[in-house]
């Protein structure tokens, strides 16, 4: 089964619609996704070649029970051991994997769980990524917050108690230029202890500037590491250039960022291939830059505005749990973030096994924290909230979230689970 991503808006002109269909149906009108554009920094190294050599053409059914047990008995895992833990043969051993993962997590992180919140400051996007709510052809309410609005949002979030913020934008260097994002970072430093970015990949000098503005962590999702599949999903915009995105974390490191985060969007193609490649992307960079803090995320596909059918296909909760336990056992020292794409019961459970960071008080819309926080406080149902938000000045969401708990509720729930919620463990130097 496949997701059907392509949606035509009735607001597009005949010419625009024609162009959209051309791009969707005719590969020859799309630009070469493997070639850097002239303004893009290009790093000359063999990390991608190493990744391809280690992660492509894996026969997942060749792994056996013995391979899984050997991996679980090893103190440090080889790449092949890691593959065994991702394979179907490991699924019956999920409880053993979880037990081992929990031990590794407690050695490196104790019983802590970090809390943060994302803040989307703009949802304009130049890319056409067929699965994403922000894609340039999707008919959604667009918004770029001005600085007064950003400050207001930050005040509200900060008042809730959050100390770590992740600033996000749609990928439009035109609407959300580096200067604009930099100003948002400077403002965030006034309200929060820790500022991270999840924005379009940029050049080293831009990362350096954003670091000077106060950001220290950069998250870039590769979405899928299968470049052929990538080409069929990312049809327009800078994001189409697969290797430029692949090198984003390394450019961020060279720009002075303390930490970088990685992920594939699970459900786009063979999830085992993508989980393997995500971890190895991190692994090879960590060998080159051992001083950097690394983390992995694990987003699964979610429904978006105008397409509520999108789902993560065969990546069920059990598979996701298997992937995360395998990550933890193979890379015991890395952070693992589980976003509000997952439901409460999953996040509560996985935080006790291997997740080290979860979001709380989340909105993936633009400029709507105040209304949403009030609505969640008063337990307003989803339909009334949607109506409430329809008439106002907010921008639409990137995807539909599954866990709407407020910061207070999350802090309490994590404490009740026997975990120690941590709001900050960082100092900008």
């Amino acid at each position: 089964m496949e997701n059907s991503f392509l949606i035509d808006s009735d607001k597009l002109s005949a010419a625009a619609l024609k162009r959209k269909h051309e791009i969707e149906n005719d590969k020859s009108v799309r630009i070469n996704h493997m070639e850097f554009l002239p303004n893009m920094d290009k790093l000359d190294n063999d990390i991608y070649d190493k990744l391809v050599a280690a992660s492509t053409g894996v026969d997942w059914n060749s792994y056996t029970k013995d391979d899984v047990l050997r991996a679980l008995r090893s103190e440090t895992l080889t790449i092949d051991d890691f593959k065994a833990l991702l394979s179907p043969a490991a699924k019956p051993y999920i409880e053993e994997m979880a037990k081992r993962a929990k031990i590794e997590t407690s050695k490196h992180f104790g019983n802590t769980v970090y809390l943060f919140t994302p803040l989307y400051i703009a949802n304009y996007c130049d890319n056409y990524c067929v699965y994403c709510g922000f894609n340039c052809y999707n008919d959604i309410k667009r918004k770029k917050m001005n600085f007064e609005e950003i400050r207001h949002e930050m005040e509200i979030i900060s008042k809730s108690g959050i100390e770590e913020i992740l600033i996000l934008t749609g990928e439009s260097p035109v609407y959300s230029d580096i200067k604009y994002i930099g100003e948002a970072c400077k403002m965030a430093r006034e309200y929060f202890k820790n500022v991270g970015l999840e924005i379009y990949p940029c050049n080293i000098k831009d990362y350096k500037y954003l670091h000077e503005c106060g950001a220290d962590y950069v998250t870039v999702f590769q979405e899928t590491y299968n470049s052929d599949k990538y080409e069929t999903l990312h049809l327009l915009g800078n994001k189409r250039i697969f290797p430029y995105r692949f090198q984003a974390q390394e450019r961020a490191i060279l720009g002075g960022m303390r930490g970088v985060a990685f992920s594939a969007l699970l459900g786009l193609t063979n999830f085992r291939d993508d989980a393997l490649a995500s971890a190895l992307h991190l692994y090879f960079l960590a060998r080159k830059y051992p001083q950097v803090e690394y983390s992995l995320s694990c987003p699964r596909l979610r429904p978006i505005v105008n397409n509520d059918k999108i789902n993560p296909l065969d990546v069920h909760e059990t598979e996701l749990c298997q992937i995360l336990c395998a990550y933890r056992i193979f890379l015991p020292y890395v952070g693992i973030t589980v976003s509000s794409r997952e439901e409460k019961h999953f996040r509560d459970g996985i935080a006790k096994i291997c997740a080290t960071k979860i979001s709380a008080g989340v909105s993936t819309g633009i400029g709507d924290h105040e209304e949403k926080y009030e609505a969640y406080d008063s337990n307003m149902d989803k339909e009334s909230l949607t109506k409430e938000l329809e008439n106002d000045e907010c921008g639409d969401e990137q995807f539909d979230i599954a866990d709407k708990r407020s910061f207070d509720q999350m802090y309490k729930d994590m404490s009740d689970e026997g975990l120690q919620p941590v709001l900050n463990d960082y100092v900008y130097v």
Partner: protein
Amino acid sequence: MEDKLILGGREFNSRFILGSGKYNLDLIKAAVENAGAEIITLAVRRANTKDSENIMDFIPKNVTLLPNTSGARDAKEAVRIAHLSRELGGGDFVKVEIMKDSKYLLPDNVETIKATEILAKEGFVVLPYMYPDLYSARDLANAGAAAIMPLAAPIGSNKGLTTKDFIQIIIDEVDLPVIVDAGIGKPSEACAAMEMGAAAIMCNTAIATAKDIPVMANAFKLAIEAGRKAYLAGLGRVLARGSESMDPLTGFLRN
């Protein structure tokens, strides 16, 4: 005679130090109540938080804080974090931790020596976390360190005294208290380090990951005290095989 641990001119009865970077509140309670800890480390970056979550509130008032510079990647950053610690009311004690590896968190001795020199000159009581190397330990002593804190094994590993011989050399050769830090996994290992002449033991994971935290904390207290007493008593000789012949080999000598 009273046997006190003296660091930076201050006297302590306990030779157990809780390395509490992970801030398990049960662990802090057990360390103070069951292990008698009088010193608890505090990551400055973790204390860098809002009033609503002030870590200082969780630490009993009669306990001395030992702020650490974790997160520093070079001497310059460690110095800045130490300054921040002073601003936050962390006092003059500072444990210098400088790591350039996020996987094993091994200390960088070269940068640690640089930071120790700067901070000692500024009046800090500097306790540097280091990889057990004699030359580095001597340089740290010359730089003004108040104690030397060599690691026994990679942090969090519970692997025990894997660097035993090198720690013994530092204890023998450097005239500063040596606090064994990181890697101690069992009370018996803490006891062994104390028998060797270590001045104190810093420990976290061994207790934090035990099934019963308070009981394990108490086990460490007893082991450290036993090891200290054994050291002060002077260990008896170890009989070597074949060396106890009743007839002296030199009995034939006439004059």
